[in-house]
């Protein structure tokens, strides 16, 4: 591949097209394939040559692709991006067999966008346009819908990157209404559920989030350690909110020890440690976008702390002062008895505590049976 002539290359493309060999054709147009390193193919004006051998739209497509290899060889990613978009547009005109081509091209497009430091918005516009073109050609033809999930996953990636999650909703609706959703490849479904799970997290729908992310984690290929870790980063906070703490082995296996202190703090009801842990790994948590979710663990931590107070005092009529003392010990700043009442009221409202506050007696009266129901049964 690295030494063939331009004519040989074009012949190979022609054969692939004639025999409708989607995967092979995709390789010939993909930047993952060694042919792109071949200097004989890196031409700045290959149009005529391509036109001699290939029929439209392949002549233009391949010409743009070769100009792209030329640009990349010169480290001009802006030019590369420009030509890759031309390739992408041409690749949409094709039939089912050429879908692998479109996949490969779109993927390269996104990578070029990142490399050339273009505004992500532009690549988003491109992808959106691509999806719309694609869907407009799909019509009632089911076969086109096969490509939808791939494109939608690409769009998800971009929407998350530019923090415009609300744009995911119509895409999710489109897939949900499609009757093919369980027939896509596992890899694509894992990716899809990963993003939908993250979106659900963002919308505070923790039960569905747990479902999606668990599916994603379980069905993610064993060898994709990196992907499994990524899924876990979002699955862990959700599970913790539902009362399931990860083991140290799990955290160590996937190199996620940042969660270790958080886990410990939450299960012990140690607000001080929780705050410290959140601050210590702030950058990591914010970058992953889970900082705010982890803050929700505060409520669980309050619940665990107050449960400890209850277990220590061994009575069903707990003075509010005891909770105030507990909070002050955790160095929660500026808290007064009114706020303690408020926190307790909220825990009762959420179902984490069974009982009521007696303002006159300044006591929390808890149920004699199971006053602190298990976390998994609440919410």
């Amino acid at each position, binding site marked *: 591949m690295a030494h063939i002539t331009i004519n040989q290359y074009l012949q190979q493309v022609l054969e692939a097209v004639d025999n409708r060999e989607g995967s092979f054709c995709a390789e010939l147009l993909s930047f993952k394939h060694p042919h792109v390193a071949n200097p004989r193919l890196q031409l700045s004006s290959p149009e005529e040559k391509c036109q001699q051998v290939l029929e439209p739209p392949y002549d233009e497509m391949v010409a743009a692709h070769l100009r792209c290899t030329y640009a990349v060889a010169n480290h*001009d990613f*802006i030019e590369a991006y*420009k030509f890759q978009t031309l390739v992408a547009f041409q690749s949409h005109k094709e039939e089912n067999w050429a879908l692998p081509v479109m996949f490969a091209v779109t993927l390269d497009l996104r990578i070029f966008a990142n490399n*050339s*430091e*273009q*505004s992500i*918005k*532009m690549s*988003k*516009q*491109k992808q*959106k*346009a691509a999806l719309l073109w694609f869907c407009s050609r799909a019509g009632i033809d089911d076969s086109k819908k096969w490509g939808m999930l791939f494109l939608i996953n690409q769009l998800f990636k971009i929407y998350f990157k530019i*923090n415009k*999650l609300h744009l995911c909703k119509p895409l999710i609706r489109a897939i949900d209404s499609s009757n093919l959703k369980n027939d896509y490849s596992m890899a694509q479904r894992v990716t899809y559920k990963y993003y939908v799970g993250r979106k659900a997290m*963002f919308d505070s729908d923790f039960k569905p989030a747990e479902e999606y992310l668990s599916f994603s984690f379980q069905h993610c290929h064993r060898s994709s350690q990196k992907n499994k870790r990524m899924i876990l980063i979002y699955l862990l906070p959700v599970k913790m909110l539902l009362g399931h703490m990860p083991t140290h082995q799990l955290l160590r296996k996937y190199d996620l020890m940042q969660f270790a202190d958080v886990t410990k703090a939450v299960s012990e009801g140690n607000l001080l440690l929780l705050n410290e842990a959140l601050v210590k790994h702030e950058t990591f948590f*914010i970058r992953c*976008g889970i*900082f*705010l979710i982890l*803050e*929700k663990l*505060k*409520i669980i931590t309050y619940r665990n702390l107050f449960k400890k107070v209850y277990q220590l005092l061994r009575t069903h009529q707990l003075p509010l002062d005891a909770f105030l003392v507990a909070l002050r010990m955790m160095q929660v700043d500026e808290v007064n008895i*009114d*706020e303690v*009442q*408020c*926190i*307790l*009221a*909220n825990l*009762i*409202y959420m179902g984490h505590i069974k009982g*009521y*506050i*007696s*303002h*006159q007696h300044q006591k929390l*009266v808890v149920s004699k049976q199971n006053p602190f129901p298990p976390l998994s049964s609440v919410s």
Partner: protein
Amino acid sequence: MSNRRTSRRISHSQRRGPPAGREWRKNQGTWRSQGETAMKEAEEEKPGCQEQETVPRGSCQSMCPLRELREREAQKRLHRFEILEGTEKDRRPRADPSRIVKEYSRPAAGKDSTIPTDLRPPAVLLKTVCYLIDDVAASPSLHPWTEVYNFVFDRLRSVKQDMIIQRVSGLESMTILELTVRFLIYASYRLCGEPLRLYDPRINDTHLQESLSWLLDCYATGAGPHPNQEEFQALSLLYNLGSTRAMQHAMELPERLRNSPTVSLALSISRAFLERNPVRLLRLSQKLNFLQSCALHRHLGTCCRDLLLIYSHGHSSRNCRFPLNRLAELLALERSLTAQLCQTYGVEVNQDNQVVFSKTAFTEPEQGKLHCELYHNKVAEKQRDLTVGSVIHGYT
């Protein structure tokens, strides 16, 4: 063809990109502000890079283009605030050139919005905005304020339009946006509760969010310094209380900014809201200044409701006796207003002014009731002797 293209661009806010297609290359370079110079340079160097699209540059040195002045005069479409004194009763009132301002007009096919004599350059736009604030919005003699608001709102919209067409960026656009945002936030409080035909809070909100978004974008992409950034990051958080998007944006700000007293107070208030701790939230909000209180005020109704809801559950018992006075203190409201609020939510108050919380009694009132009105007096107290003008210019 070019008319249509430009019209389409105007009708969107600046943040949406141009249409997909080969045009993107020509448009993108000039859309982005200073940050993306690398790409711009690359494009300019390229040989054979034809037709660099020219950005329209305004040349109109007055607040209103002469053509429009004549047109509106002839068609008797002058606003009452624009009429030359003494000519109001004439058959054809005359325009006062020192008070007439270019109005907003919807883009339409065939209408060219890029004629230089119709466009006001950035310096003129800034002068226009200052006129609108100082001489109209802050004027003690123009009444009623709903009419003042509608006039200023419309003329500010036209300013924004001129900014978008000319792709204004940098210091002028930021100052204009800052003034616009303060005006709209102040209006959201002052006109809260007015009848829909005079003031629509949703339209105000749309434009406020657009301007705020654009402004925060400018801060993120423009080279500093931005002396007012803390103020507006905080205002954005307060106005968008409860929005995870706004919180996430704030968390991603540089540490120095996040830890500034203004922003960190706004963050604490946001956290209290997300944790559902209305007692803490209301306590912290006492520290806000007038404009910040205006930004927050529309959420105070929800805070009240949250408090009554969780207390109804948390204190639910037949023997419950919670002093009304204490509740009033927590809500930072007068006793009579607190009693009124309880009634609205079905919360019982007995003859001894004790609240009897009960989780079954609590009911959501019918839609559309603006409980933030209860807080209007409290917010007004913070204004003290600040004039409208000083509020909008950012003096606290």
